[in-house]
């Protein structure tokens, strides 16, 4: 009799939960996207996970959920988690250009140039062949592939990628940063400085707080180093021009 009472109570509680919070995967995912746009990454993760909880949702919904979670985890500084989400995404559908591109960027950041190059190559090939949904920020992925090539000492493919990145979006800072690094490898310090100045200026125009980010700090250090290399006053670089 006691077990019957307990089972009835638990059943009633379960029914209440389902009635008050009816399962709505599509709505949860829409709210997760809004939360990501608003910068609320914890809510984005929670809602994106809730959308596919208990094995609900179609394949497209599960892919979207994993993609959102990967982006949120990456923004929260958890590259390992982002990578595992992307691995799961690619296990579900091996033709996801975005997943390859994101995983390639993460691997590049983790210092795995060979793996990054393979992922970025595959992602860019899939993106070029994709019809309908275009991939935004393609210039940055060309630039990242160039960085991977540069890390592997392949100067000519890196230069080609820098050209592709700048053609894709001439105002994208990463393309110019890549060009600067290529010029640095070729020991053309003046050209390297000009490209680095341009890259930093474009990044700063896109985001006024870029200089406070870890990437901004790295770029700034390199810029000062290049100014010193070119015997330019690092504090007042344009004095006398």
């Amino acid at each position, binding site marked *: 009799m006691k077990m019957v009472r307990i089972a009835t109570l638990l059943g009633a509680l379960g029914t209440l939960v389902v009635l008050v919070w009816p399962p709505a995967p599509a709505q949860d995912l829409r709210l997760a996207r809004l939360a990501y746009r608003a910068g*609320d990454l*914890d809510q984005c*993760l929670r809602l994106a996970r809730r959308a596919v909880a208990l094995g609900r949702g179609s394949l497209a919904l599960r892919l979207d959920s994993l993609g959102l*979670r990967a982006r949120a985890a990456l923004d929260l500084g958890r590259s390992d988690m982002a990578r595992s989400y992307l691995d799961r995404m690619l296990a579900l559908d091996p033709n996801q250009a975005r997943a390859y591109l994101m995983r390639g960027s993460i691997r590049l950041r983790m210092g795995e140039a060979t793996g990054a190059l393979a992922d970025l190559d595959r992602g860019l090939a899939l993106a070029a062949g994709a019809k309908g949904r275009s991939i935004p920020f393609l210039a940055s992925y060309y630039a990242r592939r160039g960085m991977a090539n540069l890390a592997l000492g392949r100067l000519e493919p890196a230069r080609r990628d820098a050209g592709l990145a700048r053609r894709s979006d001439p105002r994208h800072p990463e393309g110019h940063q890549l060009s600067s690094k290529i010029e640095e490898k070729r020991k053309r310090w003046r050209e390297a400085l000009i490209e680095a100045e341009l890259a930093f200026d474009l990044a700063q125009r896109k985001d006024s707080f870029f200089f406070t980010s870890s990437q901004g700090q790295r770029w700034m250090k390199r810029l000062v180093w290049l100014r010193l290399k070119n015997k330019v006053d690092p504090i007042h670089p344009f004095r006398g021009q």
Partner: protein
Amino acid sequence: MERDNSMLAVVVGGMLLALALGAALGWLRYWLGLFVIAQGAVAGLLLPWLLGRLGPCRPALAGHPGCAGALGLAGFWSACFLAGQALGLGLAQPWFDPLGFVSRVLAGRSSEFVFGVAATGGIHRALAQGARDGFWVVLNLLDLGIMFIFLMVTTWNREGKSKGQAAPPAAAPPEAAS
């Protein structure tokens, strides 16, 4: 099995139950959101009840610890409940980071979904939104306050008997002078 009716058993039993209940409600809180005041009321009433039903001791039999004692124990169990909630919340997260979540909410960079019923000027309306920084702190203090009050007043029985027990025999009236 004989029940241990010492005060120590009440304190430790309450602590373990507060941790377990906190973890369960923390896990639910992550997935469903915080039902302000209702969560505190449920936890504040469920914990003394569970302590009486499942715990090693009926608190009433251990005697009333006095006002300061009841206050201190309610505070201690509330702290254990909060620790349990952090644990449950962390276990529900994709990776265990309850303090990181709280710090982001306090900094206004994240939010927690809260819902409840609010009354302003006699008009009642449902409330369902993301709470952050100061507002989140106020709502949590409100919820915790309700739980604290329930823990303080519903655990103990001043007469030294639990509800199901018979009252101790009344003292025999003094013999009337013949």
